[in-house]
C-alpha cells in the first residue's frame, strides 16, 4: 500500500538535491511537477499541514533542516500519515549512515542517498524494508565490496 509516485529532495533555495521517479513520466512532465511543487512547498508556512492536493494526486512533504522531502503519493492507496513516517525513516537512515546528515552530505554523496533509498523503496515505490539496521547493514556491506577490486575475494 505504500505506492509512492516520486521522491524529491528540494533545498530551501529551490534546488533539487535528489529525484527518484517510481512512475514513468515524460521529461517535460517531470520538470513541470518539480517546478510547480517547488513553489507550492516552499511557500507553505511552517504551521500548515504537510499534505497538499496536487493535480490528480496528493503530495506529502516534510522539512528537515534546509531540505524538503517531497513525496507524490497514490490517492486511496497510500496512507498520508504513514508516508510521513516513510520519509522520516529515510532521513533517520541517512542520518545514521552519514552521521548527522546535512544537505552537503547528500549533494556530494547522492549515490549513497540513492543506495539507501533503493533499499528502502522498491518497484512502484513500495516499502521493502522497515528496519533501519537491515538497510544500513546491506548498504555498508555493498560499500565494502566496492572497495575490493575483485569480486572473487569477497565471494568465498
Amino acid at each position, binding site marked *: 500500500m505504500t505506492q509512492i509516485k516520486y521522491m524529491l529532495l528540494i533545498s530551501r533555495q529551490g534546488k533539487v538535491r535528489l529525484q527518484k521517479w517510481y512512475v514513468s513520466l515524460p521529461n517535460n512532465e517531470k520538470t513541470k511537477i518539480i517546478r510547480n511543487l517547488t513553489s507550492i512547498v516552499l511557500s507553505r508556512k511552517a504551521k500548515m499541514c504537510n499534505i497538499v492536493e496536487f493535480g490528480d494526486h496528493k503530495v506529502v512533504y516534510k522539512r528537515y533542516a534546509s531540505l524538503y522531502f517531497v513525496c507524490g503519493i497514490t490517492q486511496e492507496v497510500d496512507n498520508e500519515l504513514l508516508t510521513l513516517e516513510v520519509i522520516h525513516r529515510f532521513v533517520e537512515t541517512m542520518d545514521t549512515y552519514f552521521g548527522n546528515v546535512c544537505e552537503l552530505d547528500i549533494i556530494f554523496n547522492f549515490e549513497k542517498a*540513492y543506495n539507501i533509498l533503493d533499499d528502502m523503496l522498491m518497484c512502484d515505490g513500495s516499502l521493502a524494508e*522497515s528496519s533501519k539496521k537491515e538497510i544500513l547493514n546491506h548498504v555498508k556491506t555493498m560499500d565494502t565490496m566496492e572497495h575490493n577490486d575483485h569480486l572473487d575475494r569477497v565471494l568465498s
Partner: protein
Amino acid sequence: MGSSLKSFIKDVRASKTLAEERSIIQKESAKIRTKLRDDHLPLEKRRKNIQKLLYLFILGEKTHFGQVECINLIASDEFVNKRLGYLAAMLLLDESQDLLTLLTNLLNNDLNHPNKFIVSLALTTLGFLSTLELARDLYPDVENILKTCKDPFLLKQALQCAAKLIAKDVSLLDIFSMEYISSIFENHAICTHSVLLGISKVLQSILLAYPGYLDLLREDGVELNGENHQILNDGIKFIPELLSRLQSLNVKSSQPDYDVKGICDPFLQCEIIYTLRLFFLLDVPEIDRFKNKFEDLLSQIATDTDGSKTSGQAILYETARTIFSLDLEQPLRILGINILAKFLSGRDNNVKYVALNTLLRVVPQEPTAVQRHRKFISRCLHDPDISIRMRALELTFAILDENSLVELVNELVKFLESASGDDKDLIIFTVDNLVETFEKFKVHDEKWKLDIFLKVLELVGSFITLEKLGDILIIINNTEDLQNKIYVVSKMLKVSLSNDQDSVIQIFDDNLGWKLVTIWCIGEYADLILLKNASEIINEESMTKYLLKLDSEYGTYDSKITQYVLTASLKLSSKIDNRKCIEDLRQIILNHTKDPNLMIQVKSVQYELIFSQPREIRKSILASMPIFERKVRTPDMDTQSNVHQKSKPVASNADLLLDLLGDMDSSSGQQQGKAPEMTLSSESTKPENSKPTDLLADIFSSNVNNFNGKAEPVGTSSSLEFKSTVTLPTNATKIYDGKALIVYSGDVTVENGSANFELYFEAKSSVTDLSCQSAVPKSQKLTMGSLYPSASVGHGQLSKQSMKVSGSGKLKLRVKLKYNSEGISNDEQFDHKFNEAL
C-alpha cells in the same frame, strides 16, 4: 584534479550567476558526451563520467546519451561497476524504453549470480524497470529464488519483484504458485517483517491483477468457485495467518529494529491491514467467515494502539479507512468516527487534515455520528491552516441538517467574522452554500435568518458574487412576515443612510454587495419603510441622497451599480412625494441617457419614458416584485454527489444508484423550473407595459436566464398542441410497463466507450409533469437531454428523452419516474439491463 565529480559539483555550486552555472553545466555535459563516445575509455573513467551524468540528472539536465553506457557498466564483472550501472539504469532509463531489452540477458545472468548482493541489485532493478517482455522472460528466475532461497534478504526483494511482475503481466497468475508463500509462512526463521511486507505485496498484486477483481467488487455475491478462482482460493488460506501476524504485531512492545516511537513496525501493520481490506472487499462466503475475527481485531487495534504519535495515528487512520471502505457493522463505524474525531481534537495538523477528509466522505454512512463531533469540526474553522479550514467548511455543510442548522450557521458566521481577504475562495464557498442551505431547510425563525444574511453582507459583502446577491435579494423579497421584512430593511437602511462613524456596524467602502442590496431595498421597499419606520435617518431625502451619492461615486465605472441605481431611482420616484427628491431622481436617470454604455443608455431612455407617465400608471408598472419561486441548481450539488459516491466505493449497486437518485432529486427542478411561469405571470398582469417590467426583472436575470434556455413550458395548453411529433421507432423495446406509462428504449448505439439511446414514454392515460431521473453504475457517466416535446403526454402519445452514457462496464440503468396522472401523483422506479456493454 579538475575532472572529479566532487570538483564538478563544487564548480556548479560556486557559480555566481545562473548564466555561469549553465555554461559550466553545458561544458561538462559536452565533455561527458565526447568521453563516453570513446570506445577505448577505461572503465574507471567511464564510471566517473556516469557519476557526473547522474549529477546532471539530479539537476534536471538531458542525460539520454548515457543510457547505453549504464548497460555497459552492468555488463562488467566488477561489483563497483555493476552497482553504479544498475543505479544509473534505474535513474536514466524508464519502463517505456526499448533499450530495456538489452538488459534481459544481463539481468538473467545476475539473477542467478552466486553473489547475493548482485542478485539483489538485479532484483531491485527488475522490480523498478519491468516491461511486459522482461516480466515474461525473467519471471522464472525470480520464481527460482522464491522456491529455493532461504535468505530473508533476497526473499523480500524477490517477493516485491514478483508482485511487480504479476502486475505487469497478468498471465503470470496462471503459473504463480501459492506454495512458495505457504512454505515461507511455515518457516519462521525466514519469515521476517520485510518478508511479510513482500508477501503482502504479492497478495495485493494477485488480488488486483486478478481478471475481473474489480468486476467482482461491483457484482454482489459472485461465487468464487471452479478452477478459475483457484489462485484466489489459495490466497484466502492465508487470511488467518495474516490476522494472527497482525494481532501479534499490534500487541508486541519493543523490538528496537522495528520500533517507531513506541509502535511496532507501523509500516507492516498498515500493509497487512490494507491487504486484508483488499480480501474482504470481495464479498464471498469463503472470506466472509473470517469477517468476525477481522472486525474483532480491528476494534482491538482501535482501542489498544497508542494514538499520541504519528506512527500510531497512521495505524488508527488505516483502521478507520478500512472500516468505512468495507462498510463494516455500525459499532465499528462509530469506533472509526471516534478515532477520527479524536484526531480533530489534537494539535497535529496532518492528522486533522486526514480526519476531516475522511469524515467528509463518511458523512453519508454515519451522519449522526459525525454530527456528534461538530464542536471539534467547528473549531477547525478557525485553524491557522487554510486547507484545514476549507475541509472543515465542507464538512460543516455536509453535516448540517434541520436540527443543527442554527448552531452551525452561527459557527459559520463566526468563521466569516474571522476570515480575511486570503480566504476569498472559502468565503465565496460559504456564502454559496449558506444560500443553498436556507433553500433546502425550512427555517422557522425568519427574523434570525434575515439577520444572518445581513450579517453576512456586512462581513463579506465585497466577496459575494452577483448571482448570490440576487439569491439574497430573493430571500428578502420572499419574506413571509411583513414585519420581518420591515425589520431587516430598516436595520440595513439605518446603517447605510446614517453618516455615523461610530455606529456598531461599519460598512467598508469596498463592500459593493451591501451597497447593491441597499439600493435595491430602497427602490423596492421605500414606501413600506417610510410608512412604518420613517425617522431622522430614514426618510425620503436620505434615500434620494444615498442614490445620488452612489451614482456619483460609481456612475462612470461600475455599470452594475449604475443599473441598480437607475432602477431604484425610478421605483423610488413613484413611492415618495417630495418634489425635489423626485426631480433629483429624474436627473440621475436623465444623466445616463447619453451613457457610453449601451445597456445603461437604453435603460435610462426607457426609464425616462416611464418617468413621464402619469403617476398612477407609473405606480402600477413599478409595483413591488412578486414572490419569487425558483429552484436553482448550484454547482455544489455536483461536489456533494461526488463525495457521496466516493465514500461508498463498494456499497452494493442498488445503493449507489439510490444515492445517485437522491442527489439528482435536488437538481431535477431544472426541468420543471417554475421561474418561467413567474415571468409569464408578471407579464400577464401588466400587459400594457411589459418591457420595463422585464427590465426590472433583470436584477434576477442571472437566475431567470438559466431557465429560459432549458426549461420546458410545463403544463401550459399551448405546448400540448404541437407535441405529438414523436413516433416509436421500429427497433424500440419495451422495458417497463407502469401504471400510466409504458417505457421503451430505442436507437441504442454504442461506440468508443459511450452509448446513446432514447427512452420513449407512452402514456396509457394522460400524464402531466413527467420527470424522469436516471442513474448508472459508478463506473459510468450519464448525460440526459430534456424531455421532448413536453413533460405532458396525452393519452396514447409519446414523449422521448435522449441519454448518453460513457464509461465502462455493462450498460444498465435505473429510472425513477414522477408524474401526475388523473390528478394523482405517481412515483415509479425500475431497473433495466441492456444487452449492450461499453
